[in-house]
Structures are given as C-alpha cells and as structure tokens.
C-alpha cells in the first residue's frame, strides 16, 4: 500500500522499520543457533547480557538456548558497565544491577547487547569483565550493527543485521516487555 503524502503525522512517516516482529523472532532463533554452533553445547561458555537494554535480547536468546538444549543449566549473568565508562565525568550515569553468580575464569564469555554503535560500551564491558576473572575468550553478539560508525576497533562475532547509518540517525530497538511491540526502527 502506498502512503499518500501528508496523510499521516510527519513523525510516524519518518519511522523506518529495520526489523519487523517476525524478523526479530527469526533473528533471535538464528543467533541462538549460531552461538551453539560455535560453542559446543555451551560446555565451557557463559552468557552475559549488558545492562540495561542488552538484557531484553539476552533474555530471549537464553530462553531459546534452553529450549534447544532442553536444559536450564546455562550460566547467564548481567553486567552493568556504568562505573567503567570513559565519559563518566561528562554526565552522571545511574548504575543498574550487575549479577554474575559464577566464575568466568577460563570460560568463553558471550557478551550480548542490542546495538553496536561506537564500540565504547563494549570497551567498557571488556574492562569490567576482567575484574571478574580471566576468560579464555570473549565473543560479541549484537542484534544491530551500525557499521561504519565505530570509534574503536571492535566487531561482532554473531550479528542480527548490519545497517548503514549516519550520526544523526537513531536506532531504537523495541521489546514487547517494555515498549509494547518487538521492532527495530530507524528514527
């Protein structure tokens, strides 16, 4: 169907859907399978979601992994990187809960976040992780990669979708739990 010009509000007409609800569900399934493919039944691997918005994705992926493996015995933690930010003195950031109730020493850590943009959050997360132990390997799983926007040499290992954006673009990942609907939009 073709929208008539001026038929809807300007704001809505500038929304561009990057992933629809169905696509998101498929992508989450695929990411879970890819993680398993590369980490033999998660035998020596742990999952760590990044607070606050990476948790929505990591919750879904972990649910999918449990489903596929048929077990609840997955090491799943949550990490908040507020105290490790490189802009901690630019503005006050409020911390969220960190909960990593297992050792990451010698493990493969799979970090999960929703959007990879400048790479600075992941840099901080790597610093934070090392305070919990020395993992044998860290890999990164993201739903959206805003490629060509990186400020640090960081790349995802498991990727939902790569998109080309400019600085003034805003990518919003919506989750049913929090924002009514599963959807990734460009604002």
């Amino acid at each position, binding site marked *: 169907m073709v929208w008539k010009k001026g038929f809807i509000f300007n704001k809505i007409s500038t929304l561009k859907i990057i992933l629809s609800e169905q696509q998101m569900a498929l992508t989450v399934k695929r990411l879970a399978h890819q993680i398993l493919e590369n980490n033999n039944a998660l035998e020596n691997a742990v999952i760590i979601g990044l607070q606050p918005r990476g948790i929505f994705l990591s919750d879904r992926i972990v649910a999918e992994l449990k489903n596929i493996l048929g077990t609840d015995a997955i090491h799943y933690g949550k990490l*908040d990187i*507020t*105290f*490790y930010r490189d802009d*901690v*003195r*630019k*503005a*006050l950031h*409020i*911390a*969220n*809960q*960190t*909960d990593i109730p297992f050792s990451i020493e010698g493990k493969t850590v799979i970090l999960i976040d929703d959007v990879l943009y400048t790479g600075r959050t992941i840099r901080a997360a790597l*610093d934070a992780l*090392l*305070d*919990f*132990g020395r993992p044998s390997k860290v890999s990164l799983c993201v739903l959206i990669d805003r490629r060509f926007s990186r400020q640090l040499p960081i790349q995802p290992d498991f990727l939902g979708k790569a998109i080309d954006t400019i600085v003034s673009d805003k990518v919003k990942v919506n989750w049913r739990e929090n924002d009514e609907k599963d959807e990734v939009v460009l604002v």
Partner: protein
Amino acid sequence: MKLSTKHLLGIKDLLKEDIQLILSTAEQFKEVLQRPVKKVPSLRDITIVNLFYENSTRTRMSFELAERRLSADVLNFTASSSSAAKGETLLDTVNNILSMKVDMVVMRHSASGAPHFLAKHIPAAIVNAGDGINEHPTQALLDAFSMKEKMGRLEGLKVAIIGDIMHSRVALSNMYLLKKMGAEILVVGPPTLIPTYISEALGVRVTYNLQEALKWCDVANVLRIQLERQNQPLFSSLREYNLAYGIKRKMLEGLGKEIVIMHPGPINRGVELDSDVADGPYSIILNQVENGVAVRMAALYLLAEREQ
C-alpha cells in the same frame, strides 16, 4: 537523575529522592565489593582529601577505602600531626590544600557547622564525615542501607534510637533520614540525655523506658555514651546507666520476637551494649561497617563534579 545538592553536609538538606538515589547506587557498589577485583575506575581523575580534625577509626578508613576503590587519589590530613597545631586557621589549611588541585574534601570536625562554613568559602565538593553534635550523614545513610537490607523496607519501620541523643550527630542524622523515608521513630534514654522539645522539633516520640521501647521496635539503634562531649555529669555512673539503659541478651530473648540491634561504633562494652548482644545473633553491627564502604562510594560517585 542526579543529587539536588553539590555537597553532602547533612541529611537535613537532602530530598527523599536523593536518599533513594544514594541507597540504590550503594547497592550496585556493594556488588562491586564482592568481585575478585573490588575496584572501579570511575573517579581516577579525582583527588580527595580526608580532613580529620577529630579522632576516627571506622569513618576515616571507610572513606579512604571507598575513595581508593573508586580509583581516586587520596590525601590524608590529621589535625594532631599538622600545622593546625601551629595555629593555622581551617580556611587557610583548606585553601592551601585546594591549591594543590584537590577536587573533594571529606571532613570531620568537632565544631558543629564547620563543613557548612567551608562550603560557603571554597569551590570543592564537601562531604561531612561528622561535625560536632550536628550531623553525620554517611552514617545515617549506611544505617538506613543496613536496615533496608535486613528488613526489606524503611517505610513504616519502627526504629528506636537509644542512648545519648543529646550529643549524638548519628542520632540527629538518623532522625532526619528515617523521618524523610517514612519510618516511625522512638527516642529512648535518661531525661538528661534527651533534648527538651525534641518531639516538637523533629516529630519523634520519646520514652524513658527501655523495656517499652524494645517491645515496640523492629530495629534498635544503640548509641555510644559520648563522655568526651559531656562537660557535666548527666547520670550518676556508667554502671547505673548500664543497669537502666544497657541492652542485655536476656531482655532480647524475653521479647519473643525478631529484633535487630545496630550500633555506629565504637562500642562501650558493658555500658550501652553487653558483649553477648554486640556479638550475638541480633546484632548487624559488622554488616553496618561493611555497608559503610559501599554507601560512601555511592555518595562520592554521585557528588563528583561532572561537566554538565
């Protein structure tokens, strides 16, 4: 969200939201303190001076540890071994320290209002670590944190504050804080150690009967008898005080209910608390000390200057 104040001079100046923000941030720092590496880089470009014009063990060590765990640079100043003994004024001392590019001042002083005076005259953020008989805000915050951790809430909690109310900055800060957070407060002690008109001024209940207070309360915060601040006899002897207001194990066991015993330290064993209470199952005194570091990290983290 950020604190409504630039300094932490007293609980009196804080909003309920400020207190909630400090307590919730402290929860995150408490988790940091359980990690193999108990240190975060948040304040690594900040220098903090601990200015102690009055003796302290717990508070000074707790602040210093909190500062180091935030990666701040720390300077320690103790009045007895400094030029203050040669007659330098407080303002001169602080201005000299600040000219060495210090960002924050943590201060304890025996004169009530000393940090408030400094706050008017210097640009650095000031944290009050106890001023005379006025306030000790971080102690009240860590007490609240410990109560909340143990009891799950502050709202509606029944707290008895027992002992030397007159000379206790811990009592005053605790009363301000608990009042703001919606707890019920009962102050207990001999009439000579409770200021007249306290119930009118602060909206707390007063009783001179310890047994009645223990029966009523969920939490008993027991204060130290501050002999160093009492320049006239306010009760006949420590032994008599212990008989009338000392907490004994038997009393607590006779209550037939859960009760939490707190004390800001240092304890006068056998005066306000018997040893088997201080070290017994009702006491959360050492948890208070542990929580003190996390709460002070939260206060310093939230007060550190930002560009915005």
